[in-house]
């Protein structure tokens, strides 16, 4: 069992879950959080995680954490993956652990590794300016045997190292490149459009093997999802399990949790989108905890522990043959209008048997959305549903995603 976990970043739900497990941990985060940590008796090391210098580096942090007897580092969000990787390299005496962390932080490198290992990926390239994107799109058009007058092939561009949908742009034509791309987008990854139905998995890995695989059904990317997966994806569970394990083998991932996104085609082929190794957004682990009746946040942390025993692992995760009784889903509510002053919760929601609760709040008078939203921006609250029928769940999530809550 780990002597002490270093949780790098800040997440109250994770900290609370760790408190409940009674396992030793220390939080490493910015000085801003220190007073709160002190007030709530949270073991804490303040560290400038946004700085890399003679006084702020992994060796220095390693020294500071010695006092806590830390032997496992866990990243709580995207930007702390390298820090955790560097520390774990030291703890495990394996420099490649850090390199692997870099893999998660560079989408081009990640794709290349996936391609070498034999995962299905799209055509991709690092691009440095708009001309580069156009050239990429033209070559793609050529490869797709475009005839005069036909539409251009779709291209996605993504920053190398951002979480989820931040900075992601879909370009449908050469004209789009000029219209939608900013000089500040570059350099980045350009990639052909992957066909198929998108979903994500959360694979909890220990000693290189999947200990528990969660599949999240996306109803609308960035807006709504539910767990466990619906009937169709469930019928493909073995295929998905195999492919995720394959990815883990290719990347050489030994400990922690990966959150890959896939596209499942009608021919049962899985296209690899990308993967992260941090806590996914959209309250996914919360839903996962409810459906599978375990503490997914604690499990996320503990699966990073190389010294944990099989028995201990069995205690944390749901039984191998566990069947969730209910589907748990949520929809994140974004205002559809630019300006609004009231929160109006539709009557239908009160009477909806699947409805559980919401976290919506009223806007302040005449609230406006700023024009520059990144990714999906901040949602104004979540509505949670629970029920036995995945099709009804899908229907509800679709319905309430479109409903106007802010007027």
């Amino acid at each position, binding site marked *: 069992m780990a002597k002490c976990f270093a949780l790098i970043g800040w997440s*109250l*739900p994770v*900290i*609370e879950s760790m*408190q*409940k497990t009674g396992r030793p941990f220390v939080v490493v985060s910015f000085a801003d959080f220190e007073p709160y940590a002190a007030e*709530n008796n*949270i073991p804490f090391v303040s560290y400038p995680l946004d700085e890399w210098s003679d006084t702020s580096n992994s060796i220095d942090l390693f020294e500071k954490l010695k006092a806590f007897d830390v032997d496992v580092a866990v990243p709580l969000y995207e930007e702390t993956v390298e820090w955790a990787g560097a520390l774990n390299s030291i703890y495990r005496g394996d420099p490649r652990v850090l390199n692997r962390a870099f893999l998660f932080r560079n989408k081009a490198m990640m794709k290349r590794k996936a391609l070498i290992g034999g995962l299905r990926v799209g055509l991709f390239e690092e691009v440095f300016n708009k001309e580069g994107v156009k050239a990429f799109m033209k070559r793609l058009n050529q490869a797709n045997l475009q005839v005069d007058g036909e539409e251009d092939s779709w291209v996605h561009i993504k920053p190398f190292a951002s979480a989820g949908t931040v900075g992601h742009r879909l370009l449908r034509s050469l004209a789009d490149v000029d219209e939608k791309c900013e000089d500040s987008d570059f350099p980045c990854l350009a990639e052909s459009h992957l066909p198929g139905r998108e979903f994500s998995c959360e694979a909890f890995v220990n000693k290189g093997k999947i200990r528990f695989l969660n599949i999240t059904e996306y109803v609308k990317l960035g807006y709504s999802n539910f767990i466990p997966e619906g009937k169709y994806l469930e019928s493909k569970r073995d295929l998905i399990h195999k492919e995720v394990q394959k990815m883990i083998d290719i990347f050489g991932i030994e400990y922690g949790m990966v959150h890959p996104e896939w596209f499942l085609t009608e021919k049962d082929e899985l296209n690899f989108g990308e993967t992260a190794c941090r806590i996914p957004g959209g309250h996914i682990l919360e839903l996962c905890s409810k459906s599978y009746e375990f503490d997914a946040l604690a499990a996320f942390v503990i699966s990073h522990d190389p010294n944990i025993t099989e028995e201990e692992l069995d205690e944390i995760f749901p039984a191998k043959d566990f069947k969730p009784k209910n589907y748990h889903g949520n929809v994140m509510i974004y205002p559809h209008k630019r300006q609004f*002053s*009231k*929160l*109006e*919760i539709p*009557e239908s929601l*009160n*009477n909806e*048997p699947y409805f*559980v*609760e*919401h*976290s*919506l*709040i*009223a806007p302040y008078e005449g609230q406006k959305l700023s024009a520059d939203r990144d990714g999906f921006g901040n949602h104004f609250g979540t509505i*949670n549903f629970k029920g036995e029928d995945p099709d009804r769940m899908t229907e509800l999530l679709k319905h309430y995603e479109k409903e106007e809550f802010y*007027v």
Partner: protein
Amino acid sequence: MELTSDKVFTNFDQSLQEFIDSGTLTKKEKAAKLASHIDILSLTRSGLAFLYSKSVELDRAEFFKGTSWNDPDKLVPYLVKGTLKYGHPSSSFETLSELRMLRFAKGEDVHKVVSAADAQSFLEEVIVHNLEFALREPTEETRMRMPERELKKAFNLFGFIMSEMDLKGVYEKLIEEIRLICEQRPIRTSKARELISLVNRRFDTSGNSEKDKAIRVYIDALYSPSKGAKANEGKDAYSEFLKHADEKTLANEALEMGELMNATGLVSGYQAIFLKHIVNEYEDLVPICLDLNDRGIAEWEKYSELVSSLILETVSWDNCQCIYGLARMLRKNLFSRRAVRVGLENLRRIKVNPQVEKRILKSLSNPDAEVTALQYLIGGTIKVLGQPLGVGQGNNPTCQSARGISMWSQHSPAKLIDMIITVSTQNNLIMRFENQNLISNNLIKGLLDQLDYNLDVVSVVMVPHLDKIYNEMMRLSTGRLDDPHKWVNPAMYGQWIQVGFASCYDYMSNSIMDFPGYVRIFYAAFHPDFNGNQHMVYPNPVGIFITSNKGDMIGFHAVSLLRVEKSPKGEVRAYFLNPNNEGRQDWGQNILPSVHGKGEKKGESSLPFDQFAARVYAFHYSPLDVKNRINEVPAEEIQKVEKLARESWGKSYMWNQQTKLW
């Protein structure tokens, strides 16, 4: 709405358990989720009762920790309304906090600092500050600001508190409230009746204090307006009593009833029975029973045949309030106008369109089974004609329509009757705008989504059509680079409206332009010191900025400026009709429209002239008459108004100093 199942309760319990089980770090997040259950539960009576039973448990689980509700002894009754208006989650926390207080007040739980008496007086204050929720009659501002669901929550909460709590301390305040409502002589008396009934049911009014005496007048007016009614309670007993009563007894009854009606503006069902009993056999008692003045008596003598038929056909136990309208019609000599008489004769003979009939019946809370929709309609018409300033818009955004009905009733009663006949028989209305006929049934929706039926009968009949036509006129005049009301008001209300129009808002520059020039016209047109001491003849439809009690801009509203005159204390005041059911408001900057005691006629609101000017954004005037007087308005007056304007709604606009050619 009723809850479909016990699922809401189970969900709540689960969420509460999660909240209790959570550590300090995620308490806040769990509390937010728990609040969403409170939000739903507070929509129903059974939900509130459930929350009431849980409120102290929640409190002990530290649901309020880290919020402004944490220390119940530090809560301020005056702030409750604000949090309720703010919406969820604030309103849900507030709801629960009140329920907790109610438990303390009733001694069902004990708080270490807040005594039962403290909790009691806190809740009393809360009720007094929130009568609009307690009586389900929200103000203009509240209706604009609160979503329907939140209104429902507030109504429900106060209904619950009022039924559970000892209301003694609210007594005096309620009496004052009743007096001020009745002083305004609304046509729709349900609010006053509910309040009086509430006081009657929940309080001991038998004492000898001034307050006790005052409230007994209102209670008597409704429940025992005469010695006979007191001794013979109930319709049947009273009818029986009348059969055997001698003329002297009847004369006494007539006198008592007439006086009470005139003092309160309220009519009791007994008066209906009485009036029908005497109208043929004891004609001479009718003027006494209606408490008529000399002009009214002369009018009655001349037209007693028509008036008697109207009484016999229209008046009933439930349809009694129209007796007051009838008395007022007689006092104003409306029957002397041939057009009015003919109109009423016509109205008696119409067949009401089934759709209209449905609307009428829907607006009644306790209709007499034997009284037809037509009878209610005639009664309603009499009320509107007798009390033009008693028209209200109810919970509808239709101030323009209400203003129209009131204006026609005052200045063109026969035209109004005619319109009522057309709409009642055809469920349709045609009005002309510029060169087009606007047929209401061919028009798209107006401002109104769903009519609130808490309205007088005439409004229920007319407003859906007037609203659509008004809206269409507005639509047709939009985009003309000036306020559409400039064209709509004269077309909508009639030739009484002056064609000159001034608005301080400039469409081209999207700013408040030449405000001093604009105010100067307002003074030169209406202020007796600067308009050659001319009195207003017709109401003037003016647009005003509605501001909150902090003076912040909230929205627009339509009122009618009726007259500008010196008050009994010699102050020049603007007297106006606010079709919002409640004339007393707080517009911030100490601008508090008064409804009583400052020279107001029943139903009027009034403000010092400069304060009124500081809220008006558009009005009609006669450019020819004003031309030579504009420069006589002193600069200090203008500055006073401009200061008030700039420091309130003016903060929401750009101001443009450019001079405008008016």
